[in-house]
């Protein structure tokens, strides 16, 4: 790996060399990849780790006595240990491999929720949640006769503290909150929100999909009960993610999916379940994905997440300055605490038309509702254009976006 960062400035050129896709052209232009909130690109180290699994040690985990199975199991569990350190958890057993944030939230809603939520109980979420942190709770509440409450946000896209406090009460069983909004960029004061939830007697789940690529997360410092993340948004592979849960909660929770690996013994009359985390990992897991995620974390450790976050903060403020100068452009989401995402609309030009024309310039960004339809409703727009940054993005790419937007306005404005 070439990108050993020294000092206090991120060596972005070196980092870009680690990501093979960044050298490619799109529609005759160098790729300007600004869709990192959807998925990040992968460094060679992650690609090599996945490839290495299939070329060298491919086999199933936790069951074979042969050499390859032992090696695969070791690599898989090493990855679990890396995730545990990455999230600051106390024990490897608190790290459950899932497909991603969506599956992690569903696991908690279906396992913990079904066992602990009843008629009259409340689940509290915020108005800026991704659909993946709305729908599983809606389904649970419908099943159990519970009520889904929503903490409102202000015009800047921040949770209104007084309203949040007022919604917490003795009926609140769990608060599910996003750490960093994927459509607004807002970074929530989750530590404080968790503390308030606990005072009210509620558990907490934090959706860390966007946050973990941009800031150090320590689940014990946050004191959250559950934290979920996806591998592919933190330079790792798709199809792998993590649910962190406090050990005593996980141990008390019933299994979610039944099958192999999650049992100790099976007869036709009854089965006894394996200990955590295996109780929640029925079936052959995404072994290569977990190993790839472990490689992504090792890569990030080498780069330094704080340096990366600082670089991205610089890009965000530069982009905010450059885009604010464009007439008729309105930024959606102006929270004081914001990271790596800039969402906007341009008067009378639909985001999809903007996206298509920018694509012609080799600029990849996201247009649409970003799986946060309630956020779009809150701001009275059908869709936005969203540029989202990763550590390999540059100011020149922000400039390319501004030039591209100039062309869009020339054609469609």
């Amino acid at each position: 790996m070439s990108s050993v960062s020294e000092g206090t400035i991120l060596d972005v050129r070196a980092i870009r060399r680690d990501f093979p896709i960044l050298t490619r052209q799109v529609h005759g232009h160098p790729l300007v990849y600004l869709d990192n909130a959807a998925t990040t690109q992968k460094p060679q180290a992650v690609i090599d780790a996945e490839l290495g699994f299939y070329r060298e040690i491919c086999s199933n985990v936790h069951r074979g006595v042969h050499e390859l199975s032992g090696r695969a199991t070791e690599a898989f569990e090493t990855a679990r240990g890396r995730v545990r350190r990455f999230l600051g958890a106390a024990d490897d057993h608190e790290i459950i491999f899932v497909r991603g944030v969506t599956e992690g939230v569903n696991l908690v809603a279906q396992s913990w929720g079904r066992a602990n939520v009843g008629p009259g109980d409340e689940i509290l979420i915020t108005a800026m949640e991704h659909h993946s942190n709305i729908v599983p709770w809606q389904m649970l509440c419908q099943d159990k006769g519970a009520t889904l409450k929503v903490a409102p946000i202000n015009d800047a896209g921040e949770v209104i503290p007084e309203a949040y406090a007022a919604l917490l009460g003795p009926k609140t069983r769990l608060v599910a909150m996003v750490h960093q909004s994927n459509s607004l960029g807002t970074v929530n004061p989750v530590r404080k929100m968790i503390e308030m939830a606990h005072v009210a007697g509620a558990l907490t789940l934090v959706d860390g999909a966007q946050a973990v690529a941009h800031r150090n997360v320590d689940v014990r410092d946050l004191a959250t009960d559950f934290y979920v993340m996806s591998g592919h948004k933190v330079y790792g592979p798709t199809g792998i993610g993590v649910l962190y849960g406090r050990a005593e909660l996980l141990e008390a929770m019933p299994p979610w999916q039944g099958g192999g690996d999650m049992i100790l013994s099976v007869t036709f009359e009854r089965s006894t379940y394996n200990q955590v985390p295996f109780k929640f990992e029925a079936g052959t897991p995404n072994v290569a994905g977990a190993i790839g995620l472990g490689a992504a974390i090792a890569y990030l450790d080498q780069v330094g997440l704080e340096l990366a976050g600082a670089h991205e903060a610089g890009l965000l403020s530069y982009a905010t300055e450059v885009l604010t100068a464009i007439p008729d452009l309105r930024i959606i989401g102006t929270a004081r605490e914001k990271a790596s995402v800039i969402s906007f609309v341009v008067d009378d030009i639909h985001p999809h038309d903007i996206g298509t024309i920018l694509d012609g310039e080799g600029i990849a960004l996201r247009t649409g509702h970003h799986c946060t339809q309630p956020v779009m409703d809150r701001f009275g727009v059908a869709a936005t254009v969203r540029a989202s940054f990763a550590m390999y993005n540059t100011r020149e790419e922000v400039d390319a976006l501004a030039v591209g937007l100039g062309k869009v306005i020339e054609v469609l404005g």
Partner: protein
Amino acid sequence: MTPELRELYQEVILDHGKRPRNFRTMAGPTHHADGFNPLCGDKVHLKLMVKDGIIQEVAFQGQGCAISTASASMMTQMLKGLEVAEATELAEKVRALVSGNDDEAAAVREQVGKLSVFSGVRDYPARVKCATLVWHTLKSALNNGGNKTISTE
């Protein structure tokens, strides 16, 4: 801009996108339907006045991109005076034009009049639904006598 983009955003499409024709509501329509594209949030509310099997009047409202707005606007102009069966046939031809195979598209290109400007959409699979949303909505309105919301997903 690439030639493909120029083909997609032709002047006539931009014009209808900015100044859609028949963009209004209609009192007492005989047929109506709503179309929705959940991927992008585009919505179209379509109303028709059909008398003796002939489409007398068409109006639409809603929100969408340049492609979907232009498609709806130009459709309302094309439908006036057509028999219901002819309108359904035209809807099928537009589908073939923007998302059929090359032979299908070539076969209908001369038969759709001004709507041939939408053939550039073929190069943008992600945008096909923008062009066809209103035509799906039309089929729903005519086939079901209206009162239906259709979705592209």
